[in-house]
């Protein structure tokens, strides 16, 4: 069951934002420690591409999944450096393009330009961080396909979705129930 609002989108966009559904098993957990136990068991059983839902970010979940650090930081770094360079180019080139002597100071006075370079570093760094979050989350969603969801996951329940064909689904269901899932369903 999905509660997502499906917007009528044109072809290529539909593929991007609403990838085809992935068959699998969805489980709902009331407790954090039960969720962690299930994650450990799933990893021990050799599952890799399962998804964990949680209403809040928890370091325990991150650690149990053994995820790599998000590549968003590269976006921040490159954005910040680009912003600083754009700030330097903007001020130096524009001063040179229409040279006016103000207050007897050199046409290219670097100290005041540092202020502009600083602000542009922050601006571009922040905007490319946002871009990094959006792109990375979108790529992940495309890789996983449209997966089952339950509206309680943004409230007070944790959830695990394990992609599995009909051959594996039964064993996954037993595993999840054994770890303390409140509810397990196939879709």
């Amino acid at each position, binding site marked *: 069951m999905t509660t997502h609002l499906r917007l009528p989108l044109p072809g290529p966009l539909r593929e991007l934002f609403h990838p085809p559904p992935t068959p699998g098993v969805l489980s709902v957990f009331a407790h954090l420690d039960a969720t962690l136990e299930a994650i450990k068991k799933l990893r021990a059983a050799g599952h890799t591409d399962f998804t964990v*839902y949680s209403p809040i970010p928890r370091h325990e979940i991150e650690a149990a999944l053994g995820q790599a650090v998000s590549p968003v930081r590269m976006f921040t770094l490159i954005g910040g450096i680009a912003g600083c360079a754009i700030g330097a180019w903007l001020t130096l080139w524009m001063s040179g393009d229409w040279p006016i002597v103000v207050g007897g100071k050199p046409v290219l006075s670097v100290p*005041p330009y540092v202020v502009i370079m600083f602000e542009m570093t922050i601006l571009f760094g922040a905007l490319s961080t946002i871009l990094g979050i959006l792109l990375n989350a979108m790529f992940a969603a495309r890789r996983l396909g449209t997966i089952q969801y339950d509206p*309680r996951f943004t409230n007070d329940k944790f959830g695990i979705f394990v992609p599995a064909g009909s051959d594996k689904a039964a064993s996954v269901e037993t595993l999840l129930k054994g770890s303390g899932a409140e509810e397990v369903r196939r879709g």
Partner: protein
Amino acid sequence: MAEQRTTTPSRVTYDYVTRTIARTLGNPSRGYFLLLGAAVALLAVGIITLLYLLRYGLGLAGYSHPVYWAVFITCFVFWVGIAHSGTLISAILFLFRSGWRTAVYRTAEAMTVFAVMTAGLFPLIHIGRQWYFYWLIPYPNERGLWPNFKSPLIWDEFAIGTYFTVSTVFLIMGLIPDVAAVRDLATGWRKKLYAITSIGWTGTNEQWRHYTRGYLYLAALATPLVLSVHSVVSWDFAMAIVPGWHATIFAPYFVAGAIYSGCAMVITLLTPIRKLFGLEELITVHHYENLAKLCLLTGSIVGYAYVCEYFIAWYGGNPHERAAFWYRAFGPYWWASWTMIICNAFLPLLLWIKKIRTNITALFVISIFVNIGMWFERYVIIVVSLAGEPYEPWANAVYNPTWADWGIMAGSFGWFFMWFLLFVKNFPAVSISEVKEVLPPPKRQAARTGAQRT
């Protein structure tokens, strides 16, 4: 984030948090419409005044030699200052891992965005020919002219522009998981609105992985930004040679003052919201006390800066500087200077007393006085320094604000409160996911021992 010592009762669970905050978005009461109506009426006063200013020019605002920066610039600095504590609470306290910020930061952050939106109007009104506002922006034009990057006014434009953009995206980022939580409870047109604005958030581990990292870097970028913005605003003055403006202490002095006034404004705004929306169990006296402590710290820095300014004016031995500060304290504007000193430097000393710090009514009253005092601080710095310029005594004039100044100022309060009221009714005014973060997570172990005890 580690859970911290909380005084929240045990019935405050994840579900309680979601439902309590989602309830604030229900159908508005008559009181809400009255407040919104008052805000829109004030805004209308501002718009009508602005039309008069457009028709008859800035002379209506009482500008006369040598006072050409007056109430509009005072309001600009005042509103930029208000904005600052929002970023302090949302970004700097985030980096310091202060758990108490979670209950108040959304309100503070929304206040930041709307205060910058308000502040940004004033330079545009102040330039007189509003239709040429785009001359501030470097754009290719037929005469090949570019802005003068050595001017602090251009630094200001870049600083405020960056601040507005970054604080807006920071606010929106924080909202996404909460809007998704509200989406999953809502029905009807609200569900559609929140489904679109939550851009597909479901709280998967991949989303959280990128989101938490990105949020951390945004906070790390916003922290130096907030310190830089009011420093740059202070340099609008400090870079000039006007006695009373030309001081190296200005940047830290302005930043402390900005955070001080902003924290006071957070207290002013939170008090009615907490009552109206029944958030007493989420926003507790503990949060108020922490805000009061921030006020006490920054207020003490401001008080120190006042003493320092007067001391250096005397000790520096510059006759112009001495004359300017004598004029400030004992000239025709003595009432403005003493209002500022009493409201900002003496009144907050009451916050040393724990009884006052934990009394919400007392804090609400003090916060309003701090706001008045901080408005007068900017008025004193800007208007009084210009009016009492000792270089050209023949040109000195006592400037007094006119109805046009008050009209525009009233309009700015209307504009700010209109946006703020619309925000708190349509989006979660308290962060749902971050309040949950400081609660103990539901665990089987705890559930079992709890069951045994009862």
